[in-house]
């Protein structure tokens, strides 16, 4: 569902550009609004959420899609935790559909998907490993790196049980906006993948904005 935001970037209390292949780890407070902006188009933002008071409570893809009865995320979706609590509401979305089945790229899964000799190409999971290592204050480890959302990524499911990786439906300037319903740690890997169309084979920067 396409829903535009009324928020003005000039009113944002925080703005940061995340270069392709980098991570961003940041606490968003309850009632703050987070916008993830696809600056140049066709970029995948691999995103995880954790309850700030207890990172063992985190975004659950399965609970979220099952309870909304639909496999795609868009405006109106409530992002649920593994404890069944609403973590964030998607309040605006100019892209229309986001994936939460495809997971993130990792060097090991790249060997399976593309070729064994691609095992040392940069991948989302490596960005997340560095993130948890560089942010010891959150007390997180590989155990916390779970099933993520791919904002701006288009992974259609067919009625006969197929899964396809289609060209992105995002474009320069498209965004998704989430209102935090609790204090959350946001962990984004701005996907460095060079081997599939999720980034149009050319990873580009995204921007994050926060409003009080």
């Amino acid at each position, binding site marked *: 569902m396409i829903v535009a935001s009324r928020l003005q970037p000039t009113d944002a209390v925080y703005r940061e550009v995340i270069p392709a292949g980098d991570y961003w780890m940041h606490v968003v407070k309850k009632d703050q609004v987070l916008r993830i902006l696809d600056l140049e188009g066709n970029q995948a933002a691999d995103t995880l959420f954790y309850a700030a008071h207890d990172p063992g409570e985190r975004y659950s893809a399965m609970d979220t899609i*099952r309870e909304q*009865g*639909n496999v795609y995320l868009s405006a109106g979706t409530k992002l649920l935790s593994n404890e069944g609590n609403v973590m964030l509401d998607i309040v605006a979305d100019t892209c229309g559909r986001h994936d939460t089945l495809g997971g993130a790229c990792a060097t090991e*899964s790249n*060997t*399976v*998907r593309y070729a*064994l000799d691609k095992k040392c190409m940069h991948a989302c999971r490596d960005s997340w490993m560095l993130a948890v290592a560089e942010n010891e204050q959150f007390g997180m480890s590989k155990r916390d790196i779970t099933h993520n959302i791919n904002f701006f990524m288009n992974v259609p499911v067919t009625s006969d049980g197929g*899964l396809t*990786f289609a060209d992105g439906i995002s474009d320069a300037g498209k965004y998704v906006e989430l209102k935090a319903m609790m204090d959350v740690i946001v962990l984004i890997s701005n996907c460095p993948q060079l081997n599939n169309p999720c980034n149009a084979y050319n990873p580009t920067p995204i921007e994050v904005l926060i409003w009080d």
Partner: protein
Amino acid sequence: MHDEYSYLSGSAFFSDIIPGGAHWSLTIKRNHVLRLIDIEGGANVGMLFYNPANPLERYNAPDTLKCQHTFKLTRGHCLYSDMGRIFCSIVRDSCGWHDTVGGTSNKALVKKRWGERNYQQYRNDWYLNGYDSFLVELAKYGLGRKDMAANINWFSKIATDDAGNLHFATGNSNAGDHVDLRFEMDTLVIFNTCPHPMNAATEYPKKPLRYELFHAAARAADDCCEHACHENERGFINNALYHQCNNGGL
């Protein structure tokens, strides 16, 4: 032409029954086959896999789906770890569709749909939920909620329509339906027989599971899982490299 059971070597050397709405776990060595049998029809078996030598390596549903461009699981599919290796491959399936996106039931869901049956009043006829059942089994190996991942729901089918709406299919599995999993590396198997969280049955479905273990025969040159797609050929190479690096010891 192959015998349809040519991936087995001999008859079952172990057999057991787990009642409906219960949980269990076991470690299965590579080159063994686990057969899951839906005794009465309508069973659901929630399952997770871990590497016993390093439990941080675990079943990864997204990698499993995207490597094989599938939303459902059936014969020919391999179940991948997050480390690009194959825990097990589905060498036989009389059902045609198993779910790995519906997740598992929790206490609130069971209470809302089927009511509450506590131990104090109902003893072992109480209503368990999938989430707590996984927690109990995981804790036996020093694992906890942070180690939980998207699970498989054997015998259950969740399909989507063109708009992405999810539907639970009734009658996907009938009495005697079974699925055979050939283990390609040593694997800790955590499972429960709690109902699928999207099952709309009016009564809490308590469906028992029979499981059997066999020795696996050597993989045939035209193995249905290894050669289902190039991705699986590379997955099998990753397993071979893993066992080679560990001098066959793991």
